[in-house]
């Protein structure tokens, strides 16, 4: 791709006037003169100049003198033998045979080659960085502060104290710059310097000494001394808080063991599980503090039928659990605490206690706002982490440098077991070979017939998958309808035999979990017969199909609960449909857990025993990361759906996740082997977080919003009994607030005009789209700049080659001239 530059020294153009290949005489005139001067001068002076130049450069690099001796030269020559034999590339190498040792010394002292290992170079680089940072942090003085006669340089305002003496060494300048920076920047700069700790300690001590000297010179006022001490104390407490947070991280040693054996891919599953635990802990704390605790402290007055605890409750969630804090039905619809027994029975949420009470807690409002806020904050956290991981894994200008990235970043330093390291090396070798084969094969296009066959096979596979998903959807729909009808007809019988009812209720979760377990296996079997262009496409297709199945299942279930059970709950003998839906979700979570257990048992343990004892193979099963993560996302969606109906469901989910963690951990360590296929951990993590946000949280929020907006709550239980929708509770409160404080009518007017007016939403969405458009234009512009800069760097590289070659040729001419002189002398 580079221009074919002619470095032939005997080229007539070269001999004539040492013109540059670009033939721009005017521009290179001064350089030409310089070379001409050198050519005219005697050998001694030019050699001296060359040595001067070389010694200047070597002085800077005396800390880490590269291996410049003759053995290095030999190594370079040896290396050049290995060079790629492309005709064009030969000319592009800077390392030619027979470079003099001086040229090589100069080459190795070039800034671009010393920046990586030379202490002086690093210090000067960071000197510049700190100077830039200092300039940025300084506040610019206003021009009015200066008299018109004096013309200070605004850029160096505040830095007149610095000596611009050339003898001040770079290190002192760095110390000076660091000392003038605010403390947090200083710490960040020091940490980010790629020097050894010993050197950084020296620099830091110099900075501290200078600071102490300055502080002792000035007489500080009481106030600034106090400020100084406060800042130091704040910094110390920040560090101790960080280490406290670090020690709170659960499961550190276990995670290290997993990553040591299996690498980053399997580790990402367990890290995802940890993230889900944190989300659920947050949800539990919010609902616990604002809903469960107040209600548990002030239990409702209604007489509750207390059933004795039989073990079946844990399985079905009903029975003695159904009239506890766990479900929606327990919560009261008046303000806590009740002022008197007789008051308020049958009243709706508008009853604000007028008696003297120091603490009043409006339960319906609390319920409404807690659930809303919890979802809102979870959404914000998820979107934030999604955008962060998205920014990390997708870059602009993602050119095709797969091979380079694979070579430089595929070694996973976390893996420490010898066997796993071997497997990883084999994997990398296979991947590199495959990629190389792909690159060479890119030219051969497959025939039309082959492509057509492949597309046909893809079509058949997709038809099978979609058909089976639709079939299962229909099956679940009709089954749920059957159960519903059965309940309608027989609910009186079930009141006598409650166990029968519970057993029937368990059937729907079992069926759905079974489908969720078996159908992905079918998809895997179908995918075996397909051929994909790359393994990542294969992974995406598998995730897509699995996701489609789970979303359709959840959709059917939501329709069943919100569209069939909620309007007709009285016909199946329920007083409280929300508690019933909460119980259903509890059962679904539980069944999901049981089936995960069974899947681990059969899928991994028994399969390993089977393949070892019966098939006598050494291959252990591979941990399917994508499928397991999708199962986790499904479970979390159920938990989010259920928070409205069962505020303690996050606690159940936390318990379940803990158990799943330990079960999966032990299973993976005992039964599985390291994955053989390449797994791009960070891209997959981005996809999973996105899936957690968009179908999962969004779907749950839509369901909850629909429930709050349009479904009638039960008339005899829960905090919203008697209202036409749950949303009305907020509206009622607004009206009451307006009645009591007319000044706050602004709020309610704002609510009416902004939140409920669709025009405002349109305008908001429009502005948002415009901002996105501007950002995408900025990104396009940056892409153009990147390609321009790349061209510029390439031209600089050409210049560098040209200069080095001229240097070499001049030196050679001197040598020849010197030899000729010597031979002349000897003959004379």
């Amino acid at each position, binding site marked *: *791709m580079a221009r074919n530059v002619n470095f032939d020294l005997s080229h007539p153009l070269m001999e004539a006037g040492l013109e540059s290949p670009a033939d721009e005489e005017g521009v290179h005139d001064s350089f030409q003169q310089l070379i001409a001067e050198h050519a005219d001068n005697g050998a001694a002076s030019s050699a001296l100049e060359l040595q001067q130049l070389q010694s200047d450069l070597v002085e800077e690099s005396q800390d880490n003198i*590269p*291996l410049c001796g003759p053995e290095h030269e030999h*190594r370079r020559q040896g*290396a050049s033998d290995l060079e*790629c*034999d492309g005709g064009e*590339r030969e000319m*592009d*190498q*800077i390392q030619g045979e027979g470079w003099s040792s001086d040229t090589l010394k100069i080459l*190795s002292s070039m800034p*671009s*080659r010393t*920046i*990586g*290992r030379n202490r002086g170079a690093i210090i000067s680089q960071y000197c510049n960085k700190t100077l830039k940072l200092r300039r940025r942090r300084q506040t610019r003085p206003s021009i009015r502060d200066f008299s018109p006669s004096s013309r200070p340089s605004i850029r160096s305002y505040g830095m007149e104290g610095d000596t611009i003496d050339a003898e001040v060494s770079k290190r002192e300048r760095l110390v000076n710059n660091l000392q003038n920076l605010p403390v947090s920047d200083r*710490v960040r700069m*020091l*940490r*980010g310097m*790629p020097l*050894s*700790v010993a050197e950084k*300690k020296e620099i*830091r001590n110099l900075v501290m000494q200078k600071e102490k000297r300055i502080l002792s010179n000035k007489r500080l006022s009481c106030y600034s001394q106090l400020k100084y001490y406060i800042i130091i104390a704040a910094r110390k407490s920040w*560090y101790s808080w960080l280490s406290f947070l670090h*020690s709170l991280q659960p499961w550190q040693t276990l995670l290290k063991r997993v990553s040591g054996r299996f690498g*980053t891919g399997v580790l990402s599953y367990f890290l995802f599980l940890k993230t889900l635990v944190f989300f659920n802990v947050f949800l539990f704390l919010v609902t616990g503090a604002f809903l469960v605790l107040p209600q548990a402290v002030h239990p409702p007055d209604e007489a509750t039928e207390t059933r004795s605890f039989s073990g079946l409750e844990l399985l079905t969630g009903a029975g003695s659990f159904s009239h506890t804090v766990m479900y929606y039905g327990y919560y009261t619809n008046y303000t806590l605490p009740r002022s008197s027994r007789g008051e308020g029975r049958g009243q709706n949420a508008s009853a604000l206690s007028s008696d003297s009470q120091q603490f009043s807690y409006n339960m319906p409002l609390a319920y409404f706002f807690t659930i809303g806020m919890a979802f809102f904050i979870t959404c914000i956290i998820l979107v934030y982490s999604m955008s962060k991981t998205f920014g990390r894994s*997708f870059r602009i200008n*993602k*050119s095709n*440098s797969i*091979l*380079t*990235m694979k*070579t*430089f*970043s595929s*070694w996973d*330093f*976390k893996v*420490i*077991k*010898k066997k796993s390291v*071997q497997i990883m*090396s*084999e994997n*990398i*070798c296979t991947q*590199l070979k495959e990629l*190389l084969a792909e690159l*060479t094969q890119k030219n051969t296009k497959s025939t039309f017939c082959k492509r057509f066959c492949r597309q046909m096979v893809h079509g058949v596979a997709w038809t099978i998958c979609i058909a089976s998903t639709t079939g299962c959807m229909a099956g679940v729909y009709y089954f749920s309808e059957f159960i519903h009808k059965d309940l309608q007809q027989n609910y009186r019988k079930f009141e006598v035999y409650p166990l029968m009812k519970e057993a029937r209720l368990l059937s729907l979760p079992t069926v759905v979990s079974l489908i969720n377990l078996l159908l992905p296996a079918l998809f895997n079997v179908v995918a075996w017969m397909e051929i994909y262009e790359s393994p990542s496409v294969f992974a995406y297709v598998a995730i897509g199909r699995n996701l489609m199945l789970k979303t359709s299942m959840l959709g059917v279930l939501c329709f069943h609960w919100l569209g069939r059970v909620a309007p007709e709950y009285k016909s199946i003998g329920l007083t409280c449909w929300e508690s019933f839906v909460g119980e259903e979700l509890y059962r679904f979570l539980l069944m999901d857990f049981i089936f995960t257990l069974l899947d681990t048992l059969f899928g991994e343990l028994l399969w390993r025993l089977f393949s070892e004892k019966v098939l006598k193979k050494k291959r252990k099963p591979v941990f399917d990361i994508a499928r397991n993560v999708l199962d986790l996302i499904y479970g979390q969606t159920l938990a989010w759906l259920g928070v409205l109906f069962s505020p303690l469901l996050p606690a159940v989910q936390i318990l379940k996740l803990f158990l799943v963690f330990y079960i999966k951990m032990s299973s993976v360590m005992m039964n599985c082997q390291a994955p053989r296929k390449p797994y791009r*951990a*960070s891209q997959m993590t981005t996809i999973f977080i996105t899936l957690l946000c968009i179908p999962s949280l969004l779907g749950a929020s839509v369901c909850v919003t629909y429930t709050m907006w349009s479904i009638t709550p039960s008339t005899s239980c829960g905090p919203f009994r008697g209202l036409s929708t749950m949303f009305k509770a907020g509206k009622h409160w607004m009206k009451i607030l307006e009645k009591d404080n007319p000044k706050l009518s602004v709020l309610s007017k704002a609510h009416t005009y902004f939140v409920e007016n669709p025009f405002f939403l349109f305008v908001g969405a429009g502005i948002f789209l415009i901002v996105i458009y501007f950002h995408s234009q900025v990104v396009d512009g940056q892409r153009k700049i990147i390609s321009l800069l*790349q061209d510029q760097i*390439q031209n600089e*590289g050409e210049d*560098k*080659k040209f200069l080095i070659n001229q240097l070499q040729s001049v030196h050679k001419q001197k040598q020849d001239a010197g030899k000729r002189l010597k031979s002349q002398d000897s003959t004379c």
Partner: protein
Amino acid sequence: MGTTASQLSKESLSEYQELTFLTKQEILLAHKRFTELLEKHEKDQIDARVPMGKIITLPELKSNPFKERICRVFSTSEQKDGSLTFEDFLDLLSAFSDSATLEIKSHYAFRIFDFDDDGTLDCADLEKLVNCLTGETNDAKLSSTEMKQLISNILEESDIDKDGTVNLSEFQHVISRSPDFVSSFKIVL
């Protein structure tokens, strides 16, 4: 300054916290593991050095093909023998820690991959790198034609100024576009 007897003083602990990316627990754990490697008589010495042979017996480094390069890069000894003091060891852990910046990691990764220490990755360095990655067994190695093709592809993709070598800036440019680097360039004690 430096490590006193077998306990770290409070000032040095906070100093190390400011200068490295490690937390207090990680520094203390590193101190414990480091003193286990020292001889009995060296445990009380300040700035004792552990020879390379002992460092590479650490389980975190034992099976790593880059273990010698890592020791040499982080060593500050005059004889360039790869021996590490406690501060060099902290340097190592800091560069490989969770919170280290991409710049630090790519800087040290470049130095580790630069087998001949000349400041650039030329063909010989790249060949040694690929051989380390693919392992020592014969059937897992790339053939010489594949190796040549791989190296020429790498240089074509990453050598922007076309001088036949990959220098630090070009290396950092490639690394900044690969999202898996930060998560794989980690060692945890």
